[in-house]
């Protein structure tokens, strides 16, 4: 019998929600890492019992946690052992140091600060963890200030892909309201050398050589809040989604505008269509219908809650432009929550389940592709991220 395991990162800890394939009755476990901000958790597609978590705090910095038993127990990778004596340097799972080495690194430069001055790159936290599609010990981390790291030892040590930070356009990157974060990492299942990432506010980038070289892929984006609205970089991309069954077709929720690309990000087209507002954060693709996509429209960049207090998901079965409102089971009034960029996910059961969490602490599920919704939990801390594992 199939099961689903929903990994929920919140402002004050992590929670794991489990159910059978009916997705009607749920068990809730947690909080794990109580009191800490859990920006993201994600399981390995190679070994679903291996789950990586980003635990962070303004006080104590970054901690990486890993479970090898499906979230029952957790440990800091390599962190519980006394360091080995020289010459082997100790592995430190929370040591995210930008690579400035002559061999593989790039000089530590500056990016644009909120006031327009230049500001040095400073590591703050891990926003997103993306386990490898082929190796359980390999995992990618998107961090603030924007950079991409990889671990090949189960999260015990990390190395930066400095070619991204050192692309040369860094002085034009700037932090969004949440910081200058690399929040989206998409691995191409058909090409292990191809990775897509997105940064707020720099835009989307792609590597075709395993992370050594990167190029901005923002042609077609229009952002009126930067001096040149069609600039190569500087766009506030909120999230990007891709169906694993159709690599190269990307969907983007930008600060404003929902976009799609059919050529691996080389060109983008606006597909906001009849959405009541095309501001938002989350976007995802149906597991079996690559032209069916989901967004949660948010009123505006200055009012981060649904229009008219009605929490609604919008679905397009045509890859954008034509959208239908999904509201059955969702609050019809007095809902003034937000749905953050990593807080929507889909399972891969035959009847695809859609999930999202809110800053009000609710996690909703639709076990039928969005037609009907029900809350799984009502009162968690503000939800930062939602990921789903489909377990056979």
């Amino acid at each position: 019998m199939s099961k689903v395991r929903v990994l929920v990162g919140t402002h004050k800890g992590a929670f794991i929600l489990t159910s059978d394939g009916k997705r009607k009755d749920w068990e809730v476990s947690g909080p794990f890492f109580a009191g800490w901000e859990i920006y993201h958790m994600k399981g390995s597609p190679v070994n679903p019992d291996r789950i990586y978590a980003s635990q962070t705090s303004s006080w104590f910095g970054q901690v990486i946690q890993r479970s090898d038993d499906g979230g029952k127990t957790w440990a800091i990778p390599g962190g519980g052992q006394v360091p080995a004596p020289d010459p082997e340097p100790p592995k430190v799972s929370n040591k995210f140091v930008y690579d400035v080495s002559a061999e593989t690194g790039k000089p530590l430069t500056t990016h644009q600060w909120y006031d327009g001055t230049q500001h040095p790159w400073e590591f703050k936290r891990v926003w997103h963890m993306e386990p490898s599609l082929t190796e359980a010990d390999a995992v990618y981390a998107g961090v603030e200030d924007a950079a991409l790291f990889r671990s090949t030892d189960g999260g015990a040590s990390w190395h930066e892909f400095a070619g991204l930070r050192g692309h040369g356009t860094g002085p034009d990157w700037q932090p969004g309201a949440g910081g200058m974060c690399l929040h989206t990492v998409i691995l191409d299942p058909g090409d292990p050398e191809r990775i897509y990432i997105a940064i707020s506010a720099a835009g989307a980038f792609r590597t075709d050589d395993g992370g050594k070289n990167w190029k901005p892929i923002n042609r077609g984006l229009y952002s009126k809040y930067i001096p040149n609205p069609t600039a190569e970089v500087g766009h506030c991309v909120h999230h990007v989604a891709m169906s694993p069954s159709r690599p190269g077709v990307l969907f983007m929720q930008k600060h404003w505008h929902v976009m799609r690309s059919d050529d691996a990000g080389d060109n983008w087209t606006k597909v906001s269509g009849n959405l009541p507002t095309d501001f938002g954060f989350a976007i995802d693709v149906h597991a079996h219908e690559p032209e069916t996509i989901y967004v949660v429209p948010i009123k505006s960049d200055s009012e981060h809650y649904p229009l008219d207090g009605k929490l609604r998901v919008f679905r397009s079965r045509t890859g954008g432009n034509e959208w239908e409102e999904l509201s059955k089971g969702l609050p019809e009034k007095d809902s003034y929550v937000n749905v953050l960029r990593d807080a929507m996910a889909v399972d891969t059961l035959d009847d695809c389940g859609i999930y999202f969490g809110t800053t009000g602490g609710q996690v909703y599920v639709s076990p039928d592709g969005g037609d009907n919704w029900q809350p799984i939990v009502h009162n968690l801390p503000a939800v930062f991220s939602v990921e789903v594992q489909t377990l056979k």
Partner: protein
Amino acid sequence: MSAAENPPRTVRVEIPQHLRTLAQLTGELQLEVAEPVTLRSVLDALEARYPMLRGTIRDHVTLERRPFLRFFACEEDLSHQPRDAPLPDAVASGKEPLLIIGAIAGG
């Protein structure tokens, strides 16, 4: 006798609840610290014994104190004193603990 030949001192340290949880500790901890007893030597000893705390109190590279943490002892704020300055005798002798405090409560 040189400082290196002196026996280590037993220093008492209190760390915030979240760090105690990470290190799987309860209550105050005691560390053997080589003389001279300074902020640097105490933190070196703390991180050597509890590697999971590396990076949570001071930066991995610069070894600077994380901004939201403070060091108190003997009713004094020692956060801004040089990291190699001797700590008060009362701390070095174990009479008083070194307090590592989260600077801002709540949130």
